């Protein structure tokens, strides 16, 4: 690919695509909640990287909106991690397991 040189938009997008596919793979195949959480973090990182890359390579416009969007993705990721881990502890306390196939209820 002629355009795949260092510090090009294509290179960033290839990395983001790999991260996105890995995240989907983790969400679909992991049995535990932590594995799925890791997959979601990979997806969010891919999205944030794409925001920043498109913001940098947006020709002729000096603005920082791509980076700000990435910042909001990080905020959403932090909030999501806190809520998911709280749910994880709630599930773990009731069923002593975090296997998503076995978990059916939050309340004991």
């Amino acid at each position, binding site marked *: 690919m002629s355009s795949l040189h260092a510090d090009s938009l294509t290179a960033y997008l290839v990395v983001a695509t790999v991260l996105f596919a890995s995240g989907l793979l983790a969400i679909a195949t*992991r049995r535990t909640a932590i594995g799925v959480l890791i997959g979601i*973090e990979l997806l969010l990182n891919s999205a944030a990287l794409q925001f*920043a890359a498109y913001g940098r390579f947006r020709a002729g416009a000096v603005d920082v909106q791509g980076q700000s969007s990435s*910042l909001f993705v*990080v905020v959403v990721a932090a*909030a999501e991690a806190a809520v998911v881990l709280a749910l994880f502890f*709630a599930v773990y306390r*009731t069923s002593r397991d975090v296997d998503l196939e076995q978990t059916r209820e939050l*309340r004991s």
Partner: protein
Amino acid sequence: MIEHGLFWGCCLLAALSGVGAATVRNLFHAALLLGLCLLGVAGLYLFLQAWYLACIQVVVYLGGILVLVLFATLFSSDILGQRQVPSRAQQVGGVLAAGLGTAAGLHLLVVTLDHGLRLEQQRGPVHLADTGVGTAGGIGDLLVGSWFAPFLVAGVLLTVALVGAVATVKRYRRPAGGSP
């Protein structure tokens, strides 16, 4: 030349450890690989001249979220040594999902090559550092300027999420002295 080496190193680190985090059997190793992946993405942010974002990536993701994930992994210690074996249906579904994601990403690449790179070749990438917009000051100006409403919403979201998380954990705490 050394910059190119660092760039491809960050790319490889992010991509390979991302794949590893999704596929490796041991969940503890997966969490550690996620940390490596986040570090690689932080390096890529530096190449994107997003200095502030790179700092935030290290502080919030590596310092906060990854520590939470590792703590949760170690908390449920019985899964530490346990190998996660996905069922056949999960394997097929995962490969299908990853294939769909890759196809969508490749389509995005083609569209970008058609439109974005043509513009990039005409004008070249914008050097954000020249105007100082990649720094904390530049982003701060935007956040209290035209992005003020989303900034407030993000603050409310964080507050609600953290209060909700604490409330969720408290609700399921066993009473002191009660039967387990």
